[in-house]
């Protein structure tokens, strides 16, 4: 199962995703898709420094389904994190989509 690494930014708590190259981005579509467990493990090793440098907290990988160039989290919780509250379509990342 493909995965994406996400975290929360320390300064404002906003959900961020890890892009290839190591930047933290706010939209899932800009995130790096990690195709397998070994890619996830390698990337997790690289984010350690961002945690130690206190840029991000709560780092975790989550499952995504990739269809063409569309990426969709598999679990509802991750869908809500990637978009925003289902009850407030104008709040969260979905507002910018």
């Amino acid at each position, binding site marked *: 199962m493909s995965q994406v690494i996400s975290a*929360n930014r*320390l*300064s*404002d*708590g*906003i*959900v961020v995703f890890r892009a290839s190259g190591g930047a933290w981005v706010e939209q899932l579509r800009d995130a790096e898709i990690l195709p397998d467990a070994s890619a996830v493990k390698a990337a997790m090793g690289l984010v350690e420094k961002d945690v130690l*440098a*206190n840029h991000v*907290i*709560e780092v975790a990988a989550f499952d995504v389904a990739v269809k063409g160039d569309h990426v969709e989290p*598999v*679990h*509802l*919780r991750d869908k*809500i*994190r990637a978009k*925003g*509250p*289902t*009850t*407030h379509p104008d*709040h*969260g990342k979905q507002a910018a989509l």
Partner: protein
Amino acid sequence: MYRYDEFDAAFVADRLNQFSDQVQRRLSGELTEEQFRIHRLMNGVYLQLHAYMLRIAIPYGTLSPRQLRKLAHIARRYDKGFGHFTTRQNIQFNWPALKDIPAILGELASVEMHAIQTSGNCIRNVTADHFAGAAADEIEDPRPYAEILRQWSSIHPEFTYLPRKFKLALSGSPHDRAAIQVHDIGYQLVKNDKGDTGFAVFVGGGLGRTPMVGHKIRDFLAPQDLLAYTQAIVRVYNLEGRRDNKYKARIKILVHEKGFEAMREAVEAEFAADKNELLALPQSEIDRISAYFAPPDLEERPAQSQALTARRASDPAFGAFADTNVAKHRQPGYGLLTISLKPIGGIPGDATAEQMELVAELAETFGHDEIRVSHEQNLVLPHVALDDLPAIYDALAAQGLATANAGLISDIISCPGMDYCSLATARSIPVAQRISERFADGPRAKEIGAMKIKISGCINACGHHHVGHIGILGLERKGVETYQLTLGGSADEGCKLGDITGPGFSYEDVVDAIETVVDTYVGLRTSADEDFLRAYRRVGMAPFKKALYERDSGSDI
């Protein structure tokens, strides 16, 4: 209401400086997240699904217009223009940045508010009956005692690192509107045979994954012993409560495992052994604090309001509002007005900055400067002249705040659920919205009558589902939301946990299931006077179970 003196103000300023320093040390990396977490929690800062969440205490649910306006300002400036009132008389903001939180706390301090101990394993915001000081059935206003407990428990050096959180609630009336029996300690003001006022004390109540109704540990506690007795309970808990498993760490588990009688003996022994006279509450101090809560000077008015009667005759919508949302005040000609934060299809407990400002203004114009926040996630104007109701109603209606559903089926308690909460296993708010839309606030809701639906999006039970007349618990089964129903729960003086109906229902089906329960009740009640809870207690689970699970096999319900 209580006003800070110089000491209180200095205390909050002090704490603000301390926490600002901790935030700075965290942002600079001097504190690790693990070390910082406990401090941020003790100051009400959580990390939720989308961002940080700040939980602000509204002690015993009492607010001034000035404070509510400040909350509106914070909503606008630091959040997205709204706030969420919770089941523990707190307000939560869902989008503040960590770096802004010291500034927000500074703004709060300027109106005598704070977020101290709204989370963490310490004594939390002290809650009380939202009708305190105005209800017709009240023995005595519990808020002076709540304020005394609030002060005593603030940054208590011995009780800052308890096994788990610790919640106190007080009621001044025989009818419990504060759910005291599902708190770690519940205090009920009572009169003894001599006519003295004191407390019946309940210990070991709580919801969560192991729900328990509190045990009455004292029939009568003299008010001067309030702090010493509370200290004895919390001390026994601090020393003996489990710390090996956070799910078994609440005092309810200690009471259960130790045995209630052994717990009672340990508390009484500790209470008897404590010779710290400084904790004895002098009457002069009770009187001093009580003076802050002196009832407003309400001018005499006729018990029947002509203005209300006239408007009722011409406007059925107003009549419905007056029937459902106005409770009996102890002074004739006045009422306790519930401002429902449950618009049909809306988010339970949410209020926009504009709505908060309107309520503040109404409290100033018509409500003797007092606002209450109820654990049922509504606002209350506790001293309203019935003559003023038409004007208040019109103003509320203009801001979408005149929903006539207090105590009815759409007056739903709901936790934030998976839309915000990192602990949630399912969504709660959208379920509440759909139920609310299904039944609305019209004749059907009135026909159903008194009904408390309570929804939690996980086993931690912030939405009090165990004590809902109908409780809904959202869980995750194999990656899919599923909703378990409980029936017959109650959080009042007849406190009881609901019974699980059976297998859960899908997100799609849960509203139909609720409707089945409701229709079954309406079909079997003896009359419209037999509310759901009484009917359930008379007939039990069987007819509901049959209706819910045997529909496909030919049941005609």
